[in-house]
């Protein structure tokens, strides 16, 4: 740990880097202020909408007559609405905000045409709004993760072009030769998303493939969105935030290189693990299972790299909100991937294939891994955009623990309930309804976890709102989770 007593420092600011560099950084941050804050504001608004939807969905699953009998409040419409709000409203917007900011910082270039990006964000919001409305009014396409009707896809695509092209074009104006690890992931994400999205739309709606291949394309799309879009952004963010906050370079560039390319190569092949034992040629599923097992290589290298970077600095998680959330996300990446391997193995999949385990898996990926990492980045970035520090350390702590316990409890409930559900489903001596009866108590537990997550999201939204209104603290020291003296006095 740093000897000055303040354990969290921006080394370049404090040390060699002169005023020039600080000034430059301030300029770059300022250029991203409008679009990134717009991304974040919309993302958090969608997060609240999606959370409310999630609560209704979760409660309706075990209390089906709640808000029953109304077409746009029927479970089968609220569920895809929740999913799409979270995926396209919250996660994509928040990820894009973080990615644009990181891109500008790492290219050491001011963001050009920030208002165009903001316009793109506005378009994207309109697209998600129309899409969710369409789902609630009964115009869903029926393809999981791609429920938005075709006309919404067009809007999203235009919006995406407006947003991402400038982020990618920043490379043209970048200074310095080195391309940092984070930039690999972000460039990958920015290019993979439109390709994957276009391929999905093309093969499902424009020139639709035949029969079961629609399902293959759907899950290929969904897994690639999870890995190559959200996963890539989150990993890139973690590679920036962890070294930055602890003020220490990444342990190994070589490990990072291996991790990045194996990640790109293998995780893009995992889609068919959602369809194990389905009506497909066996090689497709086997290839995906093999690829899923091989994703252990990037998991190991990335995890090792983060771990070795963090080594000796773990106590800093006591103070830094960013670090705490980011490390939680990075660790969840390992858990998410290991569980992904386990449930893709044929012997396990035949039990858990049609159970709540797949919901647990999706939430591990999208929440425990991606969302937590992005929360961490928001705690780092927002103060630099609004020029204020987070107002209450206690609220941040509350946010973290409610989120961590919420997602932990939810995952446990869904995994345990799902395994029991699957075991009963595969026991022909028991009636099918038994498998449902088995999982219902766990679904109630999941609703409890949902309440925790709801609390955490409302706290965070409130805190973010204060920052947006300029009600943050004015201070030169970032907001710590615990008083710094506590550590020094306790430690000595």
């Amino acid at each position: 740990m740093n000897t000055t007593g303040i354990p969290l420092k921006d080394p370049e600011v404090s040390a060699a880097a002169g005023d020039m560099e600080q000034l430059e950084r301030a300029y770059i941050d300022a250029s991203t202020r409008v679009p990134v804050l717009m991304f974040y504001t919309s993302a958090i608004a969608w997060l609240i909408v999606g959370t409310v939807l999630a609560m209704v969905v979760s409660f309706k699953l075990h209390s089906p007559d709640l808000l029953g009998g109304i077409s746009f409040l029927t479970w089968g419409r609220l569920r895809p609405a929740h999913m799409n709000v979270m995926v396209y409203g919250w996660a994509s917007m928040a990820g894009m905000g973080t990615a644009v900011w990181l891109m500008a910082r790492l290219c050491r270039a001011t963001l050009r045409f920030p208002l165009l990006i903001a316009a793109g964000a506005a378009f994207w919001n309109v697209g998600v709004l129309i899409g969710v409305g369409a789902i609630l009014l009964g115009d869903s396409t029926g393809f999981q993760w791609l429920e938005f009707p075709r006309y919404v896809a067009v809007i999203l695509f235009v919006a995406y072009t407006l947003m991402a092209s400038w982020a990618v074009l920043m490379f043209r104006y970048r200074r310095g030769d080195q391309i940092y690890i984070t930039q690999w992931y972000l460039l990958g994400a920015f290019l993979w998303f439109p390709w994957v999205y276009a391929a999905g739309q093309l093969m499902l709606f424009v020139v639709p493939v035949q029969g079961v291949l629609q399902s293959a394309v759907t899950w290929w799309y969904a897994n690639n969105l999870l890995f190559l879009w959200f996963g890539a952004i989150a990993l890139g963010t973690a590679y920036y935030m962890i070294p930055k906050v602890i003020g220490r370079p990444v342990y190994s560039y070589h490990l990072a290189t291996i991790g990045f390319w194996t990640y790109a190569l293998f995780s893009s092949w995992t889609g068919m693990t959602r369809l194990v034992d389905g009506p497909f040629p066996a090689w497709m599923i086997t290839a995906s299972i093999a690829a899923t097992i091989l994703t252990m290589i990037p998991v190991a290298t990335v995890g090792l790299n983060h771990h070795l970077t963090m080594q000796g600095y773990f106590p800093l998680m006591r103070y830094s909100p960013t670090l705490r959330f980011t490390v939680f996300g990075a660790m969840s990446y390992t858990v998410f991937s290991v569980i992904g391997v386990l449930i893709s193995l044929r012997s396990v999949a035949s039990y858990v294939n049609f159970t709540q385990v797949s919901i647990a898996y999706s939430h591990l990926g999208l929440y425990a891994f991606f969302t937590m990492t992005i929360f961490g980045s928001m705690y780092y970035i927002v103060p630099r955009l609004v020029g204020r520090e987070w107002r209450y350390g206690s609220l941040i702590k509350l946010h973290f623990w409610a989120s961590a316990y919420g997602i932990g409890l939810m995952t446990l409930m869904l995994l345990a309930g799902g395994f029991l559900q699957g075991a009963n489903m595969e026991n022909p001596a028991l009636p099918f309804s038994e498998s449902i009866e088995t999982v219902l108590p766990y679904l109630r537990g999941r609703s409890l976890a949902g309440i925790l997550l709801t609390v955490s999201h409302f706290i965070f939204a409130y805190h973010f709102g204060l920052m947006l209104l300029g009600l943050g603290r004015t201070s030169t020291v970032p907001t710590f989770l615990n008083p710094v003296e506590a550590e020094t006095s306790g430690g000595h």
Partner: protein
Amino acid sequence: MKGLAPLFIGIFGTFAFSWVGLTVIPTWQIGHLNPESDEEGTDIYPRPQSGMFVRGAHVYAANGCAYCHSQQVRADYIADDIERKWGNRRSAPRDYIFERPVFLGKMRMGQDLANIGARAPAPEESPAPGGAASPAAATSPATTTAAAPASAPSTAPAASPGTSPARAVPPNASPPPGQPTGVASPSPGQMANTTPGGSSPAAPSAQTPGAPWPIQTAGLPPMYSAAWHHVHLYAPRSINPDSNMPAYRFLYERRRVAGERSADALQLSGGDAPPEGWEVVPTFDAKCVVAYLMGLNQSHPLKEVRSVGGAPAAGAAPSPASQGAAPAPPAAGSPAAPKK
């Protein structure tokens, strides 16, 4: 890493690799399947479905049925889907060639529906309201010629009584003690429907009173008939009190009886029944979604998949699981003889 070019090429290459590998090559391999037929070119399966089926699929998609119901039967050596009477063989890519979207599903909070139409009682017993009669007819399967909805006037359930050793239900299998036995009209066919365990030697213990679902409930239409589906969609808990399926009341219209009660009015009982002088009738969407359900039927044999029960998959051989056990109970042994 230096330079953008290798990075860009790598990013593009990994994407292209997975895109070609998991979508393009499979399309080339199984993306242009044709229906199968026997030597004479008759008995074609699968066939394009009716317009109501197609519209019903959209209602099914719009209301998210696929988030709880899968439509795929796994092989008997992998899972016990077939033992659960969700089908008499595993699903094959060819089963889905006319379906768009395909609802393979990822969750079973409800039963698998790949063969829900095959479980329906034969048409003459099913007062299918709302035009669902035709798909329902597809499920009178005595001979395999009846697989397509339109070609289904096979009125000879007696064609091959009892030739299926594994599946045929003794028509008079008596309901175990304690099971509700009240049946709308006590025909043997419906009795057969009331004996889920009877058709499944592996599951004798499933007969504990009140536990297994679905069972034929007193006063309701024959299970899996179109009329039953309507009641089930309108008031799931009137059929199974523990069901956690949402009620799709918005697909039905409550109206005052004008003159005579409509033929397709729902046969509701108890608290779900409308007051005197009122009736609940399905909207067109409800009729379509029921027509869709009644059309889901993969009981027709396919050459590439072994039908469980030992019968060769050749076209003319009777599908082992599709026997009427006796003339009167045509639904007795349909592939999905009642399920729990």
